[in-house]
C-alpha cells in the first residue's frame, strides 16, 4: 500500500511540476494527463474504482484531447526559452504558492484524524448510482444537482459553439486564405 502510495504521489507531483515548468506547450499537456492518471490511481486506492474510470475517461480522454486541439488551433508548437514562457511574477508567486500550500497542509493535518478508517468509499457502481440520484440514504439534494449538471453541460456546449464560431470577414486561415 505504501509503495503504491509513494509511487502514485511522486508521479502526480512530478507531472504537476512538469506542467508548470515545461517549455513546450504540448509537453505540458502530456504531463497534465500523466498527473490525471496518477489521480486515477489514487481513486482506486481510495475504494472508488468507478470514479477512477470516470477520471480516465473524461480527463485523460476528453479534456486532454480538447486542450491539444486548442493548442493546435492557436499556436505554433515550438520550444521557447524560459524568459518567454514565464512572466514577472515568478518569485512572488512561488512564495505565495508555498504559503498557500503550507497553510492548507497545516490546517488539514492539525485535526485529529485517528478515529478514521479507510473503507467507506462506494466500491460498487450501484452504490455510486444511488448516491448520485439521492436515494437510499444519500442526501436528496443530489437529485437536483444531477439534473442541473446536465443542463450545465448542454449550456456549455452551446456556449462553446457560439463563442468560437467564425463570423463573416474575420480571421485568417492557416494557409493565409481569407474567409
Amino acid at each position, binding site marked *: 500500500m505504501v509503495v503504491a502510495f509513494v509511487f502514485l504521489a511522486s508521479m502526480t507531483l512530478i507531472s504537476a511540476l512538469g506542467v508548470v515548468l515545461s517549455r513546450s506547450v504540448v509537453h505540458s499537456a502530456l504531463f497534465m494527463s500523466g498527473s490525471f492518471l496518477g489521480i486515477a490511481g489514487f481513486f482506486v486506492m481510495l475504494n472508488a474504482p468507478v470514479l477512477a474510470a470516470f477520471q480516465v475517461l473524461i480527463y485523460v480522454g476528453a479534456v486532454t484531447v480538447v486542450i491539444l486541439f486548442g493548442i493546435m488551433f492557436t499556436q505554433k508548437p515550438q520550444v521557447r526559452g524560459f524568459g518567454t514562457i514565464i*512572466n514577472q*511574477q515568478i518569485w*512572488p*508567486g512561488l512564495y*505565495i*504558492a508555498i*504559503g*498557500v500550500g503550507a*497553510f492548507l497542509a497545516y*490546517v488539514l493535518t492539525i485535526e485529529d484524524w485517528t478515529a478514521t478508517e479507510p473503507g467507506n468509499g462506494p466500491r460498487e457502481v450501484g452504490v455510486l448510482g444511488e448516491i448520485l440520484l439521492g436515494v437510499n440514504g444519500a442526501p436528496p439534494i443530489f437529485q437536483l444537482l444531477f439534473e442541473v449538471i446536465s443542463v450545465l453541460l448542454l449550456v456549455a456546449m452551446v456556449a462553446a459553439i457560439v463563442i468560437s464560431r467564425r463570423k463573416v470577414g474575420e480571421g485568417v486561415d492557416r494557409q493565409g486564405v481569407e474567409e
Partner: protein
Amino acid sequence: MTQQTVGQQLIIAAIPVLPALVFVVLALFGRYIREGAQYIATFGVATSLVFSGFALATVASSGVPIEFAVNWIDLGEGGSFPMGVYIDGLAAVMLVVVCFVSLMIQLYSGAFMQDDRRFAWYYAVLNLFTASMLGLVLAPNFIELYVFWELVGLCSYLLIGHWFEKPSAAKAAQKAFIVTRIGDAALFIGIIMFWRQTGTTSFQGISEAAQAGFIGDSLFTAAVILVFVGAIGKSAQFPLHVWLPDAMEGPTPVSALIHAATMVAAGVYLVARTYEIFVQSPIAMLVVAYIGGFTALMAATMALTKSDIKRVIAYSTISQLGYMMLALGIGAYTEGFFHLFNHAFFKALLFLGAGSIIYSMGSYNVLNMGGLRHRMPITFWTMVIAGLSLAGIFPLAGFWSKDAIVAAAFVEHFYVLFGMALLTVFLTAFYIFRAIFLAFMGEPRTEEAREAAESPGLMTGPMVILAFLSVVSGWIGIPEGFGLPIRDYFAKFIAPSEFAAETLALEPPSFSFIMAALSVLVAVAGIVLAYAFYVPKPEWASSLAYRFSSVWTFFDKGWYFDALYDALFVRPAMAVGRVVREFDLRALGGLVSGVGRGFSGAGERLRPLQSGGAQNYALFILFSVLILGVIVGAQYAFLVVALILGIALAAVAVGARL
C-alpha cells in the same frame, strides 16, 4: 423713600434711554440721514439734559434719593440681580454734567466733523456712549454698573478708532481697550468676591454686609483694591495710564467728551459711589490716595516736554484725575467730587480749543503755531480762562476745588501727599501756560499759522459757554470760612453718608487763607516761569533741555513706561501669537489639507496596482486569501484593525508631509 409716580419713573428712565434710541435710529438709518444726524442727536441729548435737571431738582428739594428697580434675573437666594435706578445728590449732579458736556460736544462736532465720511455713525456712537455713561451713573448695583462700564469702554474703542484707516488710530484704539480690559477684569473679580461673600451686588447691601462683618478682613481689602484697579484702568492712573495719551488719535470732540469730562471720570465716580465700602478698609484708602498723588506728579512731569498740544492736555487729565483720587483717598469726598465737577468744564474747553486750532490750522504741534492770539481771539481768550482755571488761580472755578484738596492733604497730616500736590500745582501751571504761550504768543512760525482764521460760531459758541462755566462753576462751593455770605451749596448737597463720615472721623473742613495764598502763589510762579522761558527768551528753554537732556528724554518718553510694557507684555504676547499662528497654519492646516493630500497621494501610489493583468490580480487575490486565512485561523482580529489604522495614518502623514 417716596414712591415715584409712573410718569416720574418714565422721565428718569428716559434719561439714558433717549440717547440709546438716537443711537439705534442713527445706526440703522444713518446712511440716509447724514447731515441731519446732528439735529436728531442734539435734540435727544438736550431732552435728556432737561430730564436730568428735573431729577436734580427732585433730589435737591426732597432730600431723599430716587430709587426704583425691576427684577432682571432672579435665581433665588443670593442670585437676584435687579436692574434699577438710584439717584442721590452725587448721581444727580453727575447726570447733569454728563448731559451738558455731551450737548456742548455734539453742537461743536456739527462743525468740526463736517466733511467726515461717517458723520452719522460718529453721532450714533457718541449717543451710545452718552446713554451708557448715564446708565453707569444711575446704577444701584455692581452688575448694572459693570454692564455699562463695558459699554462705555466699547464706545471709547469705537470712537478712538473712528478714523480707523489710519493705522496709528487703530492701534491706539486697541491699546486703550486692552489696557482698560485689565482693569475691567480686576473689577469683575472684585465684584465676584463681594457677591460670593455677601450674596448681593447692590452697593447698599454690600456695605451693610461688610459692616455686619460678613466679609473677612483681608478678603475685603483685596476685593476693594481689585475694584479700585478697575477704576485705575478706566481713569488712566498709574500703572494703567499708558492708553490715554495714545487715545488722542481720535477726533478732538471725542477726546473732550470721553477722555476729559466723562468716561475717565467714571473711575472716580465708582470710588465715590462705593465710598461706604471703601472707607471700611483703611489700607485701600491709602492705596487710593498714594496712587492718586503719585500719578498726579508723574503725569505732570510727562506733560512738560510734549509739543503736541493734545498730548499735553491728555497728561493734564491724568494728573487731575490723580488729584481726585488723592482727595477721595484721604477722605475729602466732597472736595474730590467738586474737582471732578469743575474739571469737566475747563478740561473739555481746553480740548475744544485744541480742536479749534486744528480746524483752522491743521496742526497740533505748538512749534508750528505762534501768534494765534491775533488771528483767533475767541479761542485764545477761552483757552486762557481754561488754563487759569486749571492752574487754580483765584477766583476761577479750579481754585476752589484744587486748593481745597491741597489744604485737606495738609490738614489730615498727609504731608508727603501735600508736597506732591503742591509741586504738581507748580508743574501744572507751568506746562499749560507753556503750551498756551507757545501757541498764541510771539510770531507765527509757519505758513498755516499766518493763515489761521477763527472757527465758525457752532464751535466757538460752546467754547464760550464752557469758559463762562469754568469761571463760575466753583462759586457754588465757596466755603463759609471765606467770609462771603454765600452758603456752600455743594458741600451740603454732596457729602459722604453719615456712616462714611463717622468712619473717617475727619476734622471739619475750614478755610485757611494761608493755604489758599500758598497754592495761588505757587501757581502764579509757574505761570511766570513759563512766560519767562518761552516768550522773551525761548533759548533758555532749549538750553535747559539740552543741559538736562537725559531727564528731558525720560519725561518725554513717558518715564519709559511704553517701552517697559512693550518688552514685558507686548512682545511675549506677539511671540505667543506668532507661535499659535504657525501652529494653526502648519499643524492644523497641514493636518486638514494633509488628509486630502494623503488620500490622493495614497491613491496615486496605489494606481500601479491596476496593471491590467489578470494574473497580477489573481496573485493579489491569492495573497489576500492567505493573509485572511492566517489571521482568521490564528484569531488575530486586532491585527486587521491595526493594519487598517496604520495604513490610514501613513496616508495622512505622507500627505501632511510631517
